[in-house]
Every structure is written in C-alpha cells, then in structure tokens.
C-alpha cells in the first residue's frame, strides 16, 4: 500500500481528523491560553453604566450577552468569559490529563494482571470493581473530593482517578482473555517463551493500540466528571460567589480561573434565564466530545476489521504525534507560563548592583521601587526598579520587568518615580522585601483605596532619607487615569524590622503651614479598625486618633483605642493662651470593635495653637501634644457649624 493510499484512508476517517485537530487545539490552548487571552481574566470589565462617546448611556448588568467586545459575554461578576476559558485551560487540562493517566494506570495494571493470572485475585478485583461501579461515579467523586480536600491538587486528581477505573480494568480483562486464547499466544507458549516475555511482547502488541483509544476516551470522561463536580460546587480553584438575598454578590476567595469553577452556580442562572453562564458548560462538553471523537477515530484506525484501518506504521505515527504533542505542550507550558518566582528586593539589588558596577563604577544604590498597577494579571510587581546614583548626582535605572530576573532593563539619566535623589543616603544590603510593607499598607487603607479607584498605580518605595535613622519603605497609591481621587501615601515601615514607624500617613490635606518646631506635635500612625480609620498617636495603653490628619480650632472628632470606660479630658493647656479651656463633648463609652476597645468623643479646642492634652479612658491614659490650625483653615468639606464658645479665626499664622 502506498503512502497516498494511507493518506486517503486517514482522510476517510473524519472522526480521527477532527479529534486530532481538536486535541491539538486544546493542548495549544493550555500552553498559550494565558498569553492570548484578550482581557484580564479576573478584572470586572462590564460596567453597569457606560457613557458612550456620542453622549448616550448604555446600561448593562453582568452577566452580559456576547457582543463585539466580549465574544462569549461576561460572567456574573463581569469577567470576560473567553479570557477565563483560555486562562483556565491549563489548570483544567493538566488535572484532567493527570487524572486520566492515573486512572489508566490503575485500570490497566489491574485489568491485565487479573486477566492474565485469573484465580481468586481476579475474582476479588471483579467484586471490588462491581462495588465501585454500583455507586454512580459522580456521587463517589463528590465524597472522595470532600474527603481528600486536605491534600489539595493531588487529592482532587486522586478523586477523579479512583472512580471509573473498574470499566477500564473490566475491558482490559476481557481483551486479555481474548488475546490469551489466540493461536499465536499458544504458539509462543509452546515454544517456551517465559510468561513475562509473553506479557511484554505479545500481549503488549495486542493490547497496546487500545491504550491510546482508551486514554482518549478516559480523558473526555474525566473532563466531564470535572465539569459535573464544578456544577455541584466542587472545584479546584477555590473561587466562588457569595450569595446574598438577591443573587450572587462578590467577592471571591481565589483568583485562578478553572473550567469546573466557571460552571459553579450554573443552574442558578438557568432559573433566572441568563444565557452567558451556560457557555462554559457547552465548551467543556465540546472539549470532551473532541476526545470522544479522537477515541472513535483511533479505534477505527487500529481495528484490523475496520474499513478505515491504517497500517501499524501509520498508526504509530499518529500515536507519536499525540504523545509528542502532549510532551511538547508540557514543556512549552513550563517555558511560557512557569516563570521563576518573583525576585525579592534583596535578590534584585544584588543582581542590579553587578550591572551598576560595570556600567557606572562607584555608583550607590539609593532607591528601590516595586510598582503594581491595575492592569496586571497576577500578583507579581509590574516592574521592580533600582536607582543607582553616581557621584555626579546622575541616576541609573535598572528595572526587572514582572520582577523576573531574566527581564532586565537598564536606562541612564532616567527616573520614572518622581523621587528626589539628592536627599537620600545610600541603602545597605539585606533589607526586607517589598511584600511585607505592601501587605501592611493594604490593611491600612490601601485595599479600600483600590476598591474605590479601579485604575490605580501602587508603588512600594524603599529609600533612606537624610533625616531618618533607618531606611524606610513607603507605599503610594495613585490614580492612573482621570482626575478623580486623591493620591494616598502610607508611610513608613522600617526596612530592617518591618515595623510601622512614625507619621505613617502623609497629609491627606496639605497643612497650611508646617507645625512650628517648638510644638513638637506627636507623629501619627495610620490605623484602621473595622470601618474606622484614623491618624493615631500611639501610646502604651491608649491610642488617640482622628479621621483627619490635621487638628483645627473648634470640634475635632476623635477615636480612642484601648481602655475601659468613658473618655475623659484630664488636662489641656494651650501654650500661648493659658486661660483657654478645652473640653471633651459627646464622650461615648468604649465598645468592642474588631476585638479591640474603641471609644469616641469630640475634642473642642476654643483657640488655635499648640495644645498639651491628657486623655484617659478608664485607667488607660495618653499625654500628647497637638497643633490646631485656625477655624478658617479647615477644608470646606470638613467644616462643621460654629460651636458655642469658639470664635472663628482667619487662616493666618500668628
């Protein structure tokens, strides 16, 4: 038979051709899915109200239908479905392939041994197999997943593999029994071929071609089981909807998209007639149909009695293509997606220092910046930048894109982070990395800021200003586009110990003039307790803070953390005006908020200037100095009505 003949036979087998192309496409999706995804799979992209350029407003509530922007629509949280399908492919497919391989391993070994040796062992295998098949696969898989949850991914894969093997082993047993009775087996046995060789050569040659068919079939079946588990609410990626009274409301537990997870909650939308959420289900079914087609085509091609059979050599080529594609996609996936972990500040510093030493000998490391922005797809920094200052006060910028040690970018005379390099000391080695300060800044208002500001730029900046004893980290939050929103600056964290140090948050409102040096007002630390956030003066047993970072003549709302009882003003003295009497009004006894004691009061300061105050809550006490600006300095939006006993004063320094 000629090659052309063989090709015609192959082409006459549409199931094999479609299955092969589909399988290769799925593998490609696993490898390059995350790269070609048009949108961030985790970003909420569909706004409820959209202002169109022609002045009209479009109103859309996720999940949205497919349109020109989103080919498969968006899900209930407004995330692009096509991007999620592409990005989730690798996780779903690797679980499915791993589980299918494991299932095949169990089924093949038990099937062949029980078929070959028979006896009580085979009977036992049959009984166990019958017992396992008696319970529907899905029921057993649900229980197995719930039991193996502590094992993570391995448990999930094991759960998918531990059901469904009996069918394989039964099939194999029957095949082996059939092969055992074949004349060539008898002939081999009669010539004295030992049992092990019989299995490895003759039996393997008979049963071998089935391996690929069964593998394709099982992959499709496992994928379907994964989808069914996802539908029930069991999936690997761990993300889910929180359900409120009127349907799902965010937020999510995890961010990795996965096909099973995309199916979670499907019937909920079926009841409310939301079409787009059914798209992942159709996609999974199509994928499993692809595997089924492949299996069908392979069976026809390897069956010696089929009209579409091909020569063993051709079949070998097809199987090599498949196995090769699988290996290639595993390797390709690793090289495309598995980048080395994000490097830490110190690792980057030592790498950058080598570059700086050869580029500008003698330059010193003065600033390090980890930059994050809303466009990022993962939790790595968008870039990690190191600034080196030469003795002529010029800067060298060395950046690691995506904090990847291999993606280095070197620029001379260029800064992109608005840092004044003249006021900085050189930084030492072995400082803490940027993730700790970032985490703390997130807790201290950064997270809230990002929720309100969809397009943001976050920078974790490491410097050593001249007036400080130790290098510090500060975290800045800036709006990336549009005029809306103020920047937020969370400052500072000691870069050696990681502790928050003084004056944590930069002025929300710029001070009209600096606090006079003779009024050494205590530095404040930004803290958040549940919904209450403020700029606190930290004391041993009591911390006193206010929602605003500056104090003014008149009423100042204050919050106290610590102590038991009602806040009291023990003493208050104005430095310039000894006759001025401050008072504490509306004092509220302490309540427990987020496990801590929190109390509220209003501190009424009749005159501006430097005040020394002693506040107690029960036995806890705090002495501190504060500087109050005149009444008219208070920004418009923070003003209260004039209070009795306070004469408003113009905003001028006395």
């Amino acid at each position: 038979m000629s090659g052309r003949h063989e090709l015609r036979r192959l082409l006459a087998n549409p199931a094999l051709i479609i299955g092969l192309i589909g399988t290769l496409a799925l593998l490609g999706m696993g490898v390059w899915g995350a790269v070609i995804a048009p949108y961030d799979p985790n970003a909420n992209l569909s706004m409820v109200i959209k202002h169109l350029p022609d002045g009209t407003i479009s109103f859309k509530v996720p999940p949205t239908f497919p349109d020109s922007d989103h080919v498969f629509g968006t899900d209930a949280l407004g995330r692009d479905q096509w991007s999620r399908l592409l990005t989730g492919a690798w996780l779903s497919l690797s679980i499915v392939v791993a589980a299918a391989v494991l299932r095949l391993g169990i089924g093949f070994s038990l099937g062949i041994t029980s078929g070959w040796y028979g006896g009580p062992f085979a009977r036992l295998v049959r009984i166990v197999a019958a017992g396992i098949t008696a319970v529907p696969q899905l029921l057993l898989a649900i229980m197995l997943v719930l039991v193996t949850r502590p094992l993570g991914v391995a448990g999930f894969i094991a759960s998918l593999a531990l059901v469904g093997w009996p069918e394989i082993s039964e099939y194999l047993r029957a095949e082996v029994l059939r092969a055992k009775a074949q004349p060539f087996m008898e002939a081999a046995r009669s010539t004295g071929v030992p049992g092990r060789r019989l299995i490895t050569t003759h039996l393997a040659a008979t049963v071998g071609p089935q391996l690929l068919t069964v593998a394709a079939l099982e992959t499709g079946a496992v994928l379907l089981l994964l989808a069914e588990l996802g539908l029930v609410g069991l999936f690997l990626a761990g993300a889910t909807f929180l359900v409120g009274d009127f349907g799902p409301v965010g937020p999510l537990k995890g961010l990795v998209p996965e096909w099973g997870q995309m199916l979670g909650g499907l019937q909920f939308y079926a009841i409310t007639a939301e079409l787009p959420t059914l798209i992942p289900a159709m996609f999974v079914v199509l994928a499993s149909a692809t595997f089924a087609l492949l299996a069908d085509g392979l069976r026809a091609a390897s069956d010696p009695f089929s009209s579409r059979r091909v020569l063993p050599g051709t079949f070998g080529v097809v199987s090599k293509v498949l196995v090769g594609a699988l290996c290639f996609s595993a390797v390709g996936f690793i090289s495309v997606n598995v980048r080395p972990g994000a490097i830490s500040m110190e690792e980057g510093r030592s790498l950058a220092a080598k570059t700086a030493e050869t580029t500008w000998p003698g330059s010193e490391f003065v600033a390090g910046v980890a930059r994050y922005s809303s466009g990022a797809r993962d939790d790595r920094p968008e870039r990690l930048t190191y600034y080196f200052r030469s003795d002529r006060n010029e800067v060298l910028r060395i950046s690691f894109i995506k904090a990847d040690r291999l993606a280095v970018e070197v620029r001379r005379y260029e800064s992109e982070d608005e840092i004044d390099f003249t006021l900085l000391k050189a930084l030492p080695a072995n400082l803490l990395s940027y993730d700790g300060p970032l985490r703390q800044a997130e807790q201290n208002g950064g997270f809230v800021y990002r929720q309100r500001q969809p397009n943001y730029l976050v920078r974790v900046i490491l410097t050593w200003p001249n007036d400080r004893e130790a290098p510090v980290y500060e975290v800045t939050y800036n709006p990336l586009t549009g005029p809306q929103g103020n920047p937020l600056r969370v400052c500072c964290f000691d870069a050696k110990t990681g502790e928050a140090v003084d004056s944590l948050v930069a002025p929300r409102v710029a001070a009209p003039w600096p606090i006079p040096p003779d009024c050494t007002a205590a530095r404040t630390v930004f803290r958040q307790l549940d919904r209450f956030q403020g700029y606190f003066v930290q004391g041993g047993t009591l911390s006193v803070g206010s929602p605003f970072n500056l104090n003014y003549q008149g009423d100042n709302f204050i919050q106290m953390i610590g102590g038991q009882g009602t806040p009291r003003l023990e003493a208050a003295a104005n430095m310039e005006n000894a006759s001025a009497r401050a008072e504490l009004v509306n004092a509220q006894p302490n309540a427990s908020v987020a496990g801590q004691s929190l109390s509220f009061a209003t501190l009424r300061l009749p005159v501006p200037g430097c005040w020394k105050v002693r506040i107690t809550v029960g036995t806890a006490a705090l002495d501190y100095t504060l500087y109050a600006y005149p009444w008219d300095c208070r920004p418009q939006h923070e003003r209260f009505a004039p209070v009795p006993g306070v004469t408003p004063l113009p905003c001028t320094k006395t």
Partner: protein
Amino acid sequence: MPRARAVGTRLRSLLAHVVLDALLPLGVAFAVVSFLADPAHIDTSELRANSLLMNTSQLFRKESNPFAAAVGSSAILMLTSIAGALAIGVPAGIAYGWSANRALKALAWSVSTLAASLPAFFWAVAIELLMILLWVQWGLRFLPTAGFGLDEHLVLPSLALGIRPAAYIFRLTATAVEEIRHADYVRTAIAKGLGDRLLLKRHVLPNAAPNIIAATVLAARAALSSLVIVEYVFIWGGAGLTFVQALGNRRLELASELALSFAVGSALLALVADLVRARVRVDS
C-alpha cells in the same frame, strides 16, 4: 430425577450470581460509602460554601421522610424516562429494521450515534440552553427548567435523561429486527404471504424481545449513573440532588443511605442484566 438435578444446578448458579454480582459488590459499596461518609474523614464545608443550591431552600420540598421522598422522586423520573425511551426507541427501531429507505436510515443511524455518544450532562445543559434562548429571544416560556412536580416539570428532566437510553434501545432493536428480517423463517413467512402486521406480531417481536429487554436494562443502568447530574441541573428533588444537599447540610446518614440506594438499584439491574443475558444465550 435428572430434571430435579437440573433445577438444582440452575438454583445454585442463580445463587452464585446473586452472591457474586449483587451481594459482595454491595458489601464493597457499603464499606466504601461508610468509610467516606464518616464524619471523621469528610469535611463538607466546601460544598456548603460553594453550592448555590445550598442557600435556595425555598426550591426544595419539606418532607417528613426525605429518604423515601427522594428515592420515590428519582424512581418516577427514571420510570418516565425509560418508558419514554422505550416508546420512542422500539417503534423507531422496528421501523428502521423494516424500512428500505437508505437515506432515511443513514440519517436515523447518525442521529442515534450522536444521541448515544453525548452524555446526559450535555443534553441537560443543551435543553436548558434552548429553553433560555426561547425565552430570551422570543419570550416563550412553556416548560419549567427547574423544580419538582408531577406535571410539566417532569418533561425536561426525563427528556435529558431519556435521550441516551432511547438511542441505545433504538440501536439494539434496529439491529435485532434487521437480523431477524433476513432470517430464513421470516423469508418463508413472507413467501407464504403473511401480512406485515402478523409477521411482526408472530415472528419479529417475540424474537427481538430478549434483545430489547437487554437493551432496556443497559439503558436503565446508563440512566441511573447520569441521574445525579440531571437531577442537579433541573433541581429535581430526587436521590441525587438530596444526596448533595444532605452532604452540604452534614446529614451524613441520609447521604450514605441515598448513595447505597443507588448501589442497590445498580446491583439489581446488574442481576437482571445477567439473567437476561443467560436467557438470551440459552434461547438462541
């Protein structure tokens, strides 16, 4: 005396069947399920947190005996879908075997291949999708896609569950009828001038019956294994859905009872399949 011995052998083989194919596997299933559903091993919080159905209690019926209600509901769904599959598959199979229209036959065979190879999960989702499309595009809402009820609620779940069994029954009936049609005795009967109706009644159906029964048992086993997902998709309060809910609500005894009821049903079907197979072999 030889007759009595034959009966004895038959009984013994029946007993062996019951023990090997039903009782011992049931024991294994019982051991596996009770190991898995042991509160010491299982942590069902994940299910409760993730499954939207755990929180929509108004969709579910309040029953004094949830086990009986669930198994009963499942049995109703199974019976409806198998009856529907028989009602479609057998006449269609006979028509296929009897017909000479090649194009039509090829079309019917391809449709049955498609129906048999796609899982119940697919049909459930596809039917749901179709209903939603009808509603969204044309405002038609004539069959409920969720909920329990012995009325129009029964239609879509039994359709989703019955498509594959119908395809199985159709294919096996069709092959049996086609084979019988070309048998000598049928040709003789035709030559003798027997009418189609009598031919069917006297010769074809009685001879195809064992195959149809075997196909029905096979179809029932397939339907039983996909019952869970169909119930879940259509929120049909049967054993499968109640099992998931019971797990999510940590009612582990109920869950394992339901899982074992599936095992019992499956073992019974396996036994019937064995007996039918034995009978088919003996008679042919």
